[in-house]
């Protein structure tokens, strides 16, 4: 191995970080505003959608996942999948209890 010990990775520029920062602030403003508007059943959907968009931006750019290996991306997806499994399968029990007995 040569003496060049730096990790081969992409250095994300501050410009990108700034853009993401503004996007996140915008998303925050948007989600607060949306909670004051009566959109019925869509309120929680929109709130979660905005939150997820913000989370995705943080993961991709602040956490460098956009420039990471397939393994990293797969790992994250596995985690999210397991998280969703826990929530949906448990909730499915609770929701279907109200359906009664067949």
């Amino acid at each position: 191995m040569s003496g060049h010990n730096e990790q081969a990775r992409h250095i994300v520029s501050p410009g990108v970080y700034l853009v993401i920062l503004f996007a996140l602030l915008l998303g925050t403003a948007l989600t607060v505003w949306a909670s004051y508007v009566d959109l019925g059943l869509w309120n929680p959907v929109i709130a979660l959608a905005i939150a997820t968009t913000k989370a995705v931006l943080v993961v991709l750019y602040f956490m460098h996942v956009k420039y990471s290996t397939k393994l990293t991306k797969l790992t994250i997806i596995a985690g999210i999948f397991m998280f969703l499994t826990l929530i949906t399968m448990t909730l499915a029990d609770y929701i279907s209890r109200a359906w009664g007995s067949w």
Partner: protein
Amino acid sequence: MQDSSIHAANAALPAHEEHPAYLRHHFNSAEQQADAAGFAMWLFLLTEVMFFGGLFTAYLIYRNWYYPAFVTGSHQLNVVWGATNTVVLIFSSFTMAMGVWCAQTRRRRGLVLCLALTFILGLSFLGIKTIEYREKIEKHHVPGFHYSLQSFLDPKSNPEVYAEYHDKPLEPDMARHTELYFSLYFLMTGMHALHMIIGIGILGFMILRARAGAYTTGHETFVVNFGLYWHFIDIVWIYLFALLYLISRH
């Protein structure tokens, strides 16, 4: 492929003079070490996702069952403080990311500044949380012996909140379930705050090391991986804010 023996790959072993002080002997290269450390950090974050997952599950179940209580309960939270805290954390993620950039581009002073800003923003978050918690204590909204249902049975007793939301009084049964809302509120924000405290502690340690130049000489793994942890905490808060504060304010 059917070679007769396992042969040594001496080329894989680094010559002793070439390998930096921080390279552990069981690794072949600094790159392998950094790779492994980053992957390990991501796996740790997965465990955190699952840990919070249990809390989110509980939250979603009870919000589904006791929606009116959750709505009324959430009106007791100050959206200005909550949004401010969200903005504070977003900025702290920005400063943390900038810190990583400084470490990668070997800007020692820049790194120290960014870490210090992240530190201060983190403390601000906790400060605001303290203000919020204190308000909850004063209003007897902390689950336990002193929990008071008055704000929910008779919303007019809470003038500032009533002026904004004009909540209808809850039935006694449903009013009791607001205690569950606040249990989850304190549990989830408390668990989050605990992670913040740990993060801020590590930040303090990192600032001292950064001043000594530890992370700006080619070995920025610790900063990068801590950044992953910090951003993760930010993401948790993004969801907590949406779920706890913004249930329905119309």
